[in-house]
């Protein structure tokens, strides 16, 4: 893996089941998905960092009508998760019935996982802790 993180590697890490975030070399802010400049200090020097994989469920939706690529997977959850390290990611949410979204507890702790679709593509995902 190259020293300067790239978007391509970020996406490949997810496909490899090895999610990593960006970390600002200057101020230490953890950033995912990638940004070319730090939201904290503006520096463009980034390095890779591992994350604990623990996060909090901030919000979510259930996609019922999806583009062709995802149509067979619907209905499925998409959630916004705030990682323990402070950054927020969009991901699939596993472990809940998509037809009972009112039972999903906002603010609950979730942990990193992956969802694999029919073609073998992996999605970043979270499941109840």
């Amino acid at each position, binding site marked *: 893996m190259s020293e300067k993180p790239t*978007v391509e590697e970020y*996406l490949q890490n997810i496909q490899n089941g090895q999610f990593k975030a960006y970390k600002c070399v200057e101020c230490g802010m953890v950033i995912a998905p990638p940004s070319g400049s730090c939201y904290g200090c503006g520096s463009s020097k980034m390095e890779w960092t591992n994350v604990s994989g623990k996060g909090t469920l901030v919000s979510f*939706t259930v*996609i019922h*009508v999806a583009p062709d690529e995802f149509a067979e997977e619907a209905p499925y959850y998409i959630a916004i998760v705030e990682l323990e390290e402070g950054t*927020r990611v*969009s991901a699939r949410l596993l472990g809940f019935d998509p037809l009972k979204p009112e039972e999903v507890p906002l603010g609950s702790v979730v942990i990193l996982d992956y969802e694999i679709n029919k073609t073998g593509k992996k999605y970043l995902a979270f499941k109840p802790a």
Partner: protein
Amino acid sequence: MPLNNTNIVSAAQTKFGALEGVSLREMFAEAVDKATVDAGIPKKDIQAAFIGTFIPEMLVHQGHTAPLLLDFAGLKGIPATRHEDACASGATALRAAVMAIESGMYDTVLVAGAEKMTSVSTNKATEALAAAADDQFESSIGLTFPGVFGIAAVAHMQKYGTTEEDMALVAVKAHKNASTNPLAQFQKEITLEKAMTPRYIAWPLKLFDCSPISDGAAALVLTSTEKAKQYTDLPVKITGTGQASASMNLCDRADLTSFHASVDASRQAYKMAGLEAKDMDFAVVHDCFTIAEIIASEDIGFFKPGEGAKAVREGTTSRDGDKPINPMGGLKAVGHPVGATGVKQAVVVYRELIGDAGPNQVSNHDTAIMHNFGGTGASCVVNILRRADA
């Protein structure tokens, strides 16, 4: 200082809806003709054109639309530039035209927007719309546009207690207003029960929470104060304008219950116009989804954060309320041909301000705000418009 040199002297739109057999360039030319020759403005007076289209590459397999559309509309030769900021393309084009006139470079320009969306399948159109979100980080996991606003709705419901019924009431209001607007895609009132039909698109958003896929075009003629009298006795001035951007990714927003670009752009526009939300007689906001209208009504300062739903419930935003919002039916019921929308919003504000809105006329109509935002809320343009004699 409020802007003083930009005047809308003519405004028109085609019917919005599934315009079968009408191509992008034909609907564009229809709107241009209505706004120029039909309004007594010779096409030779137009010095430049500012065009909003969103994604004709995917919808009708056509890029480089500005010269193409102008040529067909009989305006070949003048500077023609396309502006693209997703659903804010129309108002972005309008803002560029405002700057061109205020700079003194041109006296009279055309602003027009158009989109042809119904020639592809709904899934293909959904895919095209999804291109306005971040493809690598959000669309690629299956997040859709209704999904983006579903996430915002869940956050708003959690923080403020907004309900699915509150959102449905926005749809009921939109359809009621559009029922007397012959240019609207849907001209039928709906009951609350119908609006609540549990046909989910992206929970908690249901079919009637979503604006439709539409075809349509809209056009405006803008001119300097010196020239305005040639064309009309009752110009409408654009006295303030604002524009802001925000992160494309929803996950990068600290607050999912408000769109910061809307807050920033509206504050800029109010400041430039020297006015505040309380000075606005009505608003035309970007109600691509019902929750988007509720949030926009808070972001532009009509109501405090969390009180947008209450305003709908109490009828404050109805056409006969204290702060009417989308009095002709909004994107929700009039339709949302993406590139046309921001221009059409200005058409609506113009007609209301000059007292030409027929059965959809609001009673106080000196000053209004229009709010057009793009994609996940990553772009927003807000303008303050005021009747020149007000």
